[in-house]
Structures are given as C-alpha cells and as structure tokens.
C-alpha cells in the first residue's frame, strides 16, 4: 500500500516540474528584458533572501542553483536547509494561512523546494544532521480526497520532516503498520467527508487498545473538521491547513524532545 502512493506522488511532482518549466518559459519572455540577477555574485545574506523570493515564486532551477552555491561556499547542508529553504517555505506557509497565496502558488513553491531537497537529502543523511521528525500521512478509509493531504506532505517536507504518504482510502491496519515500519513520530489523518471523519476515532481507539497511542503525535485535518472534533476523538491537534500543520508538528516535536531529555 505504501510504495504505490509515494510513487504516485512522485509522478505527480514530475508532471508539476514539467509544467512549471513550461510556465516559466512563457514568463521568460518578459524576464529576458529584466536585469538578470546573478546568484553567485550575491553575498550570503542577500542570496538567502533571494532564495526566499525564488521559493515564493516557485523557481525550481534557481533554488537548485542557490543551494549549490551555498554548498560551494562550505555551508553545512543542514544550514542550507533551515536558513534558505525552510525559512522560505515558512513565509509561503504564512501567506497561505493568511489567504494571500492559494493552492496553485503553494504547489509551485513546494515544487521549487523539492529541487533543493533533491540535492540536500543525501548530504543531510551523510552529515548526521538533526532529524526534524517523520510523519506517516494518509486519507482515511472511504475517502479519496487528497489535495489537502498532498499540500500537508509537501509543506512538512519543506519544513525538513520526512513524510511517508500512504495515499487515500486507508484502513487502520495500513496506518499502524506504516507507523511501526517507518519508525514515525507523527500520524497525520485527513478526511473531506463528514461520513469518513469518524473513522479517525477508530484509528485512535485501536492505537489506545494496542497501547501505542502515547508513542505518536496524532494530527488531523480536513475541511469539515474542527478543533472540537479533534479533541472529541482523542487526537493531539486539529490543523486547519498545511501551514498550521507544520507549526503544530514542530511544536509537538519540541515537546517530545524536551520530555525525552528531561
């Protein structure tokens, strides 16, 4: 169940990449007249700010270029991730939360982020960078809606988390199996129908039954959900959009680390 969903998402991203390139080409007709910004000529702090802008504008090639320049200047991979990419995606997330950017812009920004992540991922693993956390996410059984879930996945990856996306229509067994096999920290569940929402309680109740509820942070989301519902079913938090999901995940991970340290 897990592999096809991730491949599916990767295929979708491949299409986004092709299409974003197409979009940029059409934009380049006006851009050719503009003064071209040469990233390698920018000092570090200006380059980072330019990368924030480039993420905001969904400019994947420029992000990859910027990442390579910073690495060439001996920046640690983890620093590139957090200061250039995650910080940029946080701005995107805030504007998405505040109703300035919408789904199309967020998809393009996340796609640009992926360009940077492609370079950084192997280097992060090598350099023993601190782990933000890992999330297993999926839409619940009976529900096929996935746009919101995909946005959460992208934004979480943009924030430096590892995400294992189970896709749609997931029974409880699939969630629990993935949590264990992936050694995840967070379970994310999404639903768009009021009729499938209650299934989230089934998953949480099963986790309690099996004595595994306390091992994971449970976040829930989807248009018909609200905070009250999240509390009623025993989730840790309801997240109203992808940006809030990232902030909430970071908060809970920090708490978890504090508990483990203290």
């Amino acid at each position, binding site marked *: 169940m897990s592999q096809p969903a991730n491949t599916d998402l990767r295929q979708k991203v491949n299409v986004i990449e092709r299409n974003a390139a197409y979009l940029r080409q059409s934009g380049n007709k006006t851009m050719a007249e503009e003064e071209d910004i040469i990233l390698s000529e920018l000092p570090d702090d200006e380059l980072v700010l330019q990368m924030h*802008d480039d993420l905001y504008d969904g400019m994947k090639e420029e992000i990859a270029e910027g990442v390579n320049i910073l690495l060439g200047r001996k920046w640690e991979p983890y620093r590139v991730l957090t200061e250039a990419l995650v910080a940029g995606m946080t701005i995107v997330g805030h504007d998405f939360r505040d109703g300035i*950017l919408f789904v*199309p812009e967020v*998809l393009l920004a996340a796609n640009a982020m992926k360009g940077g992540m492609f370079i950084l991922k192997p280097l992060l693993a090598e350099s023993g960078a601190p782990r933000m956390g890992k999330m297993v996410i999926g839409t619940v059984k009976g529900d*096929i809606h996935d*746009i919101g879930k995909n946005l959460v996945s992208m934004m979480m990856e943009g924030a430096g988390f590892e995400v294992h996306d189970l896709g749609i229509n997931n029974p409880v067994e699939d969630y629990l199996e993935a949590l264990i096999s992936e050694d995840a920290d967070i379970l994310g569940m999404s639903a768009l129908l009021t009729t*499938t929402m*209650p299934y989230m309680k089934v998953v949480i109740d099963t986790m309690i039954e099996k004595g595994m509820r306390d091992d994971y942070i449970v976040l829930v989301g989807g248009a*018909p959900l609200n905070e*009250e519902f999240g509390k009623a079913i025993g989730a840790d938090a309801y997240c109203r959009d992808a940006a809030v999901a990232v902030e909430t995940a970071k908060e809970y991970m920090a708490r978890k680390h504090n508990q483990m340290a203290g």
Partner: protein
Amino acid sequence: MTDALSNMLATRDWILADGATGTILFNMGLTSGDAPELWNVTEPDKIRALYRGSVDAGSDLFLTNSFGGNASRLKLHGAEKRARELSRISAELGREIADAAGRPVVVAGSVGPTGEIMAPLGELTHELTVEIFHEQAEGLKEGGADVLWCETISAPEEYAAAAEAFALADMPWCGTMSFDTAGRTMMGVTSAAMVSMVEKLKNPPLAYGANCGVGASDLLRTILGFAAQGSEIPIIAKGNAGIPKFHDGHIHYDGTPELMGQYAVLARDCGAKIIGGCCGTTPEHLVAMRAALEGHAQGPRPSLEVITAALGGFSSASDGTDDATPAPRKNRRRNRG
C-alpha cells in the same frame, strides 16, 4: 423549445432548489466508503425517496444522485466504466419523481469535480477533463435531465472544461463554485473573478453561483460579491446548513430550519434567484426556506453586518474583493511579469 429551467427563470421571481444529497443518503444508511451513485442501481427506492423529500418539501428544482458519477471519482470503486450508465439512471429516477409532482419541477443533473488537479499544475489535461464531463453529460441527458448542474468546483479551468463538455452534449447548464478559503475558492478565485470568467465563456450557463464552502454567512458574502459585478445572468445560492459538529459519534449540522429560513430570505435580498442548501440541509430546512420566501417580500440588499447578525460571523476577514485584502509580499527583485 426552451428547457424547463429557462421557462421557470422567465416566469418566477425566485426558485427554491434542493438541499443536501450526501447528508440524507448517509442518514438512510449509506456507509462511508460506498459510492452513492451505485445506489441508483442497488437502492433505487432510497434515491426516489431522496428526490421526493425535496419535492414534497417544496423544491422547484432538485439535483440528481450523480455528484461523484464521473469516471475519475468512480475509479475508487472500480466503477469507472459505469459513469454514463449511473448518471443516466440517476436522471431517469429524477424524471419519474418530477413528472409525478403535479407542478413544474426541474431535474438538474449534478456533476461534481473530478477531484484531480488540472494541468499545468497537475496531471489532468483539459481534453481529458472535457471528455470526463462529457460522458456524464450524455448519460444525464439520456436519462431525461432538464439541465446539467456542475457544482462545488474550485478551479476555473475545471469550470471552463465543464462548459465545453456541456456544449458538446448540447444541454443547457448551471454551475456553482465552492468558496471555502478566505472567501475564495481553494484555487484563489474571488467572487468577482468568477463573474468575469462566466461572462467570457463561449457557452455561458443559464445561472451561476456558489455552493457549499464554509457557513451560510460566508456564502451570502460571496453572493453580494457576484451581485456587485452587475451581470445579467441569474445567481444561485446553495449554502450549508451551518457547520458540522461531532456529538456522540455522529455528525450534526448546527443550522436550524429557522436559520435557513432567514438565510433564504437574505439570499434573495442579496440578489440570488435560485436558492437552496447544501451539506446538512434536509427537507425540514427546505420547508422553512419555502415558507420564509413565500412569507416575506423582497427586501433591500443587506449589509455584511446584517448578514453576520442573522447567520453568524464570517470565516475570514476578507474575501478578496474589498480593501481589507492582505497584499502579496512586495520587495521581490525578480519580476514575474
């Protein structure tokens, strides 16, 4: 020969549409995970009851049980080859109920979104989207629908593809979008932008508007936004009966019949001509809505304050059409044109 809806639009000041489909089917025992459209074949009496519920409550127009009946959505249930068949049967059942009503009732063939993101951001091409919608359109036409009715659309590209598909089927149509994100659709379309888009279509709808979204007050703000553009095309308002709340393992919508009655009257005052409900709206609500519309004269256009006082606050401060719209980041050195 004009269609039933055009006739109704020409002779009536307001038209009461129906309420929810999913809400009622789930109350009848549909389990989450099953495609409602399959009930057209396996539980036709329940679908007749669904339609009859609206008609008996006073609806002048109801939607067929075909919202998820496109190939893209039926794929989950292994029924992607049955899109045309299931749509046709949904309309046949509708025709049966409408023709027995004893008064003019319009059968509107519901066409919901594909659930996929369209190119260039996603995989679904324009051509394939048109084909998917066209298949449903032909089925609904065969079954005897009076008009086609696409609803809960978020992306303007999808709305345009539906318009093209419905032209291919040579059917009159209506189309509503769902404004659920800071007063816009999920893809960022404002009420004003929707009107511009509708007016530019080669195959414009008989009526356009908003359905679903967040609450009833949000929907009426959207209707005001439509009306402010001054288009001649009639407006549709199909708002939710409140917000879903979770009590004792069940979902209840918190909009009372009384609230929906107030919403219906305000919708008309905002400029809507076709008025109905969406999620959570049952025949009980429709009865109250009809009584309210019949019992009140048309009033002046309400202010946002009047709307929130009657129906509750908005889910966002701005809907993108006022000065309160937050602006995108400035200071970006690369011009995007």
